[in-house]
C-alpha cells in the first residue's frame, strides 16, 4: 500500500493502539456470540483447549505434519515460482507465449485438481503439490513483473563490471526486485497454508486439516475452533511480519 507520507510517531502509535483495540473488539464480540450460540466456544475455553492440545503428543504429530507440508510447499513453490518468473521476465518470447495461460490458470480454483493429484502423488505428496500450486503464482507473477521493470542502467552496470550470472542475480536482480518479491512471498505463505489445509480437509492421514474436519464430525467444537484459531493466528502472524518488512524495504 503506497502511503503518501511517512507516518509521524504519534500516528504510528495511534495505528498500533487502534489495531490492538480492533483485536480486543473482535474477542469481545466472540465472547458475546459464544454466549448466544452454544456451538461457539468462549474465547477463554478455546485458548485453554489450544494450550492443552499443544502439549498432547498426538496433536503435535498432526501439527508437525501440516507444518512440514506447508514449509516444503512454500520452499518448492517460491523456488519454482521465482525461477519461472525470472525466465518470464528476462525472455520476452517465452513471456508472450505463456502469459495468457498463466493469468488464466491463476484464476482457477486449483483445489478441484486434487482428485487428479491423489493417484499420482499419494496422500502425503498430493497436499504438498497442492500447496505448491497455490503459492507458486503470486511469486511467479511478481518476480516476472519486477524483473521486467528493472531499469536498463542496472543491466548496463552488470555488463560494465563484467558480473557473472550468479553475481548479477545476487547483487543486481534480487535487490532490484526485493519489494515485489517480498509481496509475492507474503501472499505465498498464507496460500501454502490454505492449499495444504484444504487438501487435508479432503483426504489425508495426519494433519491439522484432518483434525478440524474430524472434530467437526464429532461435534467437538472447542477443539475445532482451537485448531482453526491456531492455523489462522500462525499464518496471520507470519504475513504480518513479512508485511512490516516489506514496508521497511520500500
Amino acid at each position, binding site marked *: *500500500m*503506497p*502511503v*503518501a507520507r511517512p*507516518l509521524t510517531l504519534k*500516528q504510528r502509535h*495511534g*495505528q498500533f493502539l*487502534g*489495531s490492538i*483495540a*480492533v483485536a480486543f473488539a473482535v474477542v469481545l464480540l466472540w465472547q458475546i456470540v459464544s454466549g448466544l450460540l452454544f*456451538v*461457539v466456544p468462549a474465547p477463554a475455553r478455546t485458548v485453554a483447549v489450544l494450550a492443552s492440545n499443544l502439549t498432547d503428543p498426538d496433536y503435535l504429530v498432526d501439527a508437525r505434519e501440516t507444518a512440514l507440508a506447508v514449509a516444503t510447499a512454500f520452499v518448492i513453490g517460491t523456488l519454482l515460482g521465482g525461477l519461472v518468473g525470472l525466465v518470464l521476465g528476462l525472455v520476452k*518470447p517465452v513471456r*508472450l*507465449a*505463456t*502469459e*495468457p*495461460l498463466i*493469468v*488464466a*490458470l*491463476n*484464476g*482457477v*480454483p*486449483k*483445489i*478441484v*485438481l486434487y*482428485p*487428479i493429484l491423489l*493417484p*499420482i502423488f499419494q496422500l502425503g505428496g498430493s497436499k504438498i503439490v497442492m500447496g505448491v500450486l*497455490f503459492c507458486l503464482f503470486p511469486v511467479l507473477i511478481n518476480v516476472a513483473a519486477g524483473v521486467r521493470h528493472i531499469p536498463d542502467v542496472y543491466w548496463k552496470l552488470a555488463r560494465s563490471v563484467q558480473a557473472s550470472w550468479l553475481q548479477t542475480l545476487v547483487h543486481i536482480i534480487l535487490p532490484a526486485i526485493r519489494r515485489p518479491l517480498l509481496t509475492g512471498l507474503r*501472499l505465498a505463505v*498464507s*496460500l501454502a*497454508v*490454505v492449499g495444504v*489445509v*484444504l487438501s487435508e*480437509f*479432503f483426504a489425508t492421514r495426519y494433519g491439522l486439516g484432518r483434525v*478440524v*474436519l474430524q472434530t*467437526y464430525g464429532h461435534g467437538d*467444537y472447542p477443539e*475445532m*475452533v482451537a485448531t*482453526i484459531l491456531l*492455523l*489462522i493466528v500462525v*499464518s*496471520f502472524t507470519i*504475513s*504480518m511480519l513479512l*508485511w512490516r518488512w516489506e514496508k521497511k524495504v520500500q
Partner: protein
Amino acid sequence: MRTAAMAHQSKEPVTVPETTPTGTAAAAPAMSPRRRRRLGDATFSGIATTILVALLAVLCEIGPRAGWWGEEVLPSTSSIVASAADLLGQPQFWGDAARTSLEIGLSIVFGSVLGLLLGLVFWKLPTVGRIFEPYLVSFYAVPMVLFYPLAIVVVGINASSVVILATIMATIPVALNTTVGLNGIRPVYLKLARSLQCSPRQLLTSIALPAAAPFIVAGLRLGVVYALIGSIAMEFVTAQAGLGYRIRYLYEIFDNQTMFAYIFVVLVVSMILTALLVAVEKLLVKGRTQ
C-alpha cells in the same frame, strides 16, 4: 516510397486509389510503430497460446492411449470433452451450476458494494484506514476459507455460509484497492473540485471515483476471482450442491468419468472468465488514459 510520391504528384484522381500504399499510408501515422508492435505481440501471444493448448490436448489424448498413464489417472482429451458435452444435457449439472453461480454472483455483488463503501470510509477517515490496514493486508482473502467449518456450524450447510465467507473474500481486495486508488488521487484534482465548488456527491462521482478507477477495476477483478475460487473451494470441503461439491461427491463414489468432466468444465469456465476480466480491465483502463 516512390509510388506514394508519384501518387501525390499525379493529378489524375483515378491513380490515387490504384496506388496501394495510399489507403494504408493514411492510416499508418495514427498507428504508431509501438502500437503496431503491441498488436504484433498480442497476435504472437494468441497464436502461441493456441499452440500450447493444442499441444496439451494432443499430449493428453496420446498419453492414456499409448499407456503412459492409466485412464483412471487422466482420461484422454476426447473422452473428457465428450463426457463434458454429455454433462451439458443433464439437469443435475445445471442445478449445480445454478447453485454455484448464485453463490458467486451474490458474493460478487455484496463484496463489491461492501468493498467500495469500506474503501471510501478508509479514504475519508485515514486513521480508521491505517488501523484496519494490517488486518486487511494479512487476511488477504484466501485464509478465510479456513473459517468454513466454523461457518457451517453456526449458519448451517447451505448457500449462505458459502456466500458469507466468499463475500468477505471478495470485499478485501476491493476495499484495499479502492483505498489505494483514492489515496493516490493527485491533489490538483481535489483542488480543482474545491475551486469549482463541487458538492460532495459531485466530488465523488465526477472526480474521485474516475481518478481511482484503474485501481478500483483491478480490485473488482480480484474480487470476482476470489469469490469464484472461494465458493468452489468451500463447496469442495463440504456442501449439499454446487460444482465443487459434485466433484468431491463423484470422487467418493468412484465415478471418474463424470468427475473429470466436471473438473474440465470448472477449469474451462473459470479460465475463460479470468481471461475476459483481464481483457475488460485492459479496455477500461486504456480507454481512460487515451
